[in-house]
């Protein structure tokens, strides 16, 4: 996967300039300028309707199928302006997405994880077997499902389905993994397991972690952005943010649970 320059750690994989998102003329997010570095976990916190999900949708061009959604400004991912791509499907294959509610597709566990490889043309059963086992193992789910790979993915428990979703995202061999409040329907134990998985994955890919749990950002993110009511209030080192170093009073208030 990412095996270019050995000192790649500080190169921005994603840069966002003057991003503005609106739905049918109604502004949902504006004035976002930021850069996300390779192999970092970039946390985004903020109350409901801050525009966090819209931000993620703009990155992988899911706006195309969202009626009324309009994106202005420039998003450059891996050197390409996503607005002018000739093949958005290729962009999306390079970005794994995990939604707030787990989505086990109504097919077998095996097929769930084999779907993305199959879409990109992997046919050999041996190769698929390897990918499926590898991805399920990395998502900390293999041991629980290895004996029932042929049962329906949609019948797993919520926490298992969320790990299945992560395994499916990994099967895309993504450069960027975006998680949108993944722990909303997941029990605390599974949440911790997934958090450990993310720490591992960071070695190989960039992660954007939108989270409803302020402490989750604190535990995982290298840097954290605070979104509020359609704007990006602050971007800061997670450590300084949580050690009283926030530059905006609203950030401090939110982190300390005084509103939202």
């Amino acid at each position, binding site marked *: 996967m990412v095996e270019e320059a050995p000192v790649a750690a500080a190169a921005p994989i994603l840069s966002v300039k003057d991003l503005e998102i609106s739905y049918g003329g109604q502004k949902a997010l504006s004035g976002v300028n930021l850069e996300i570095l390779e192999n970092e976990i970039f946390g985004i916190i903020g109350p409901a309707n801050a525009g966090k999900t819209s931000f993620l949708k703009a990155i*992988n061009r*899911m706006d195309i*199928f969202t*009626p009324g959604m309009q994106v202005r400004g420039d998003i450059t991912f891996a050197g390409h302006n996503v607005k002018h791509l000739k093949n958005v*499907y*290729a*962009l*999306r*294959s*390079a*970005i*794994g*997405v995990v*939604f707030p*509610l787990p*989505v086990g*597709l*109504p*097919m077998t566990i095996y097929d769930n994880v084999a*779907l*993305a490889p*199959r*879409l*990109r043309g992997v046919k050999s059963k041996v190769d698929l077997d390897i990918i499926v086992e590898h991805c399920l193992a990395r998502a900390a789910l293999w041991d629980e499902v290895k004996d029932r790979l042929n049962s329906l993915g949609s019948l797993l428990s919520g926490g298992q389905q969320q790990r299945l*979703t992560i395994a*499916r*995202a990994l099967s*895309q061999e993504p450069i960027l993994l975006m998680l949108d409040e993944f722990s909303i329907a997941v029990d605390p134990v599974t949440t911790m397991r997934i958090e450990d998985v993310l720490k591992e994955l960071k070695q190989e890919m960039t992660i954007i972690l939108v989270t409803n749990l302020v402490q989750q950002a604190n535990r995982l993110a290298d840097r954290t952005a605070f979104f509020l009511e359609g704007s990006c209030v602050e971007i800061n080192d997670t450590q300084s943010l949580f050690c009283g170093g926030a530059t905006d009073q609203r950030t401090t208030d939110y982190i300390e649970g005084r509103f939202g």
Partner: protein
Amino acid sequence: MNHPVTTDFDRRDRDWYMDKLVQLVVFVSGISAIVFVIGIFIFITKEGMGFILDTMDPVEFFTSPYWEPSDEDAPEYGILALIAGTASVTGLALLVSIPFSLGAAVFIGEFSTGKTREFLKILIELLAAIPSVVWGFIGLTIMNPLIIDIFDVPVGLSVLNAGIILGLMTAPIMTSIAEDALKAVPDRYREAAEAMGATRWQVIFKVVFPAAKNGLLGAVLLGVGRGFGETMAVLLATGHSVNIPHSIFDPVRALTATIAAELGETAVGSDHYQALFTIGIFLFAITFIINLTADLVVRGVRNG
């Protein structure tokens, strides 16, 4: 004010009686549907029973291609040709209606939005409401000369004609059901697949169709049931001649059309009359099985 909280938990008020009344009405309507179906079944069975018990040779009935009930000396009651007629027309109709309705359902359900979608849905419902005699008339007056012209055949009333007519006729209702099935697939499945980089077609073929397969299969089965039961259109478009077809240009005769055409001319209680009712029982059984299967399939009992 009107509903003071009371601790008199044994007092039955108007709402309580209203609730009981509604329950009763619903129960009676539900029961009456069942009563009608059973009543009809008993009636046709009673009318056909004499023939089944006395005259009928079951082997001959199902395997002889000769249907000559009005022969004075040696009437023949073989429905093989009629079964072949119904089956060939229904089969061809499915070849027409499955691609049509699936395509239409995908277009309406997956590609059109807002007003276009509503308009198309209304149009489909409208098409489904066209009386079958109108379709038969189209077969007789438009398709017939068209087939003669295009294929240079002597008659245009044939399996081909009736198959196309029946296919077009069943397509709207199949479209409607198939579209419901597609709509029942939650959007988050599509979103998840799209986010993975699947194209629209990949989403439809790899995710939506497999998720909707029960409903889609149910739509097809209901189309089959409709084809077997359809009378007027096939009566007009098949050419109505007893014949095991060797090509799609052969005229045939359907089970239903036979009953419709002959029942008025038979003496009540005669062998011929009873034989027609036996065909009725057969049709009843077939459509019942098909509809039941469709129903079970739609509900997804397949996992069993």
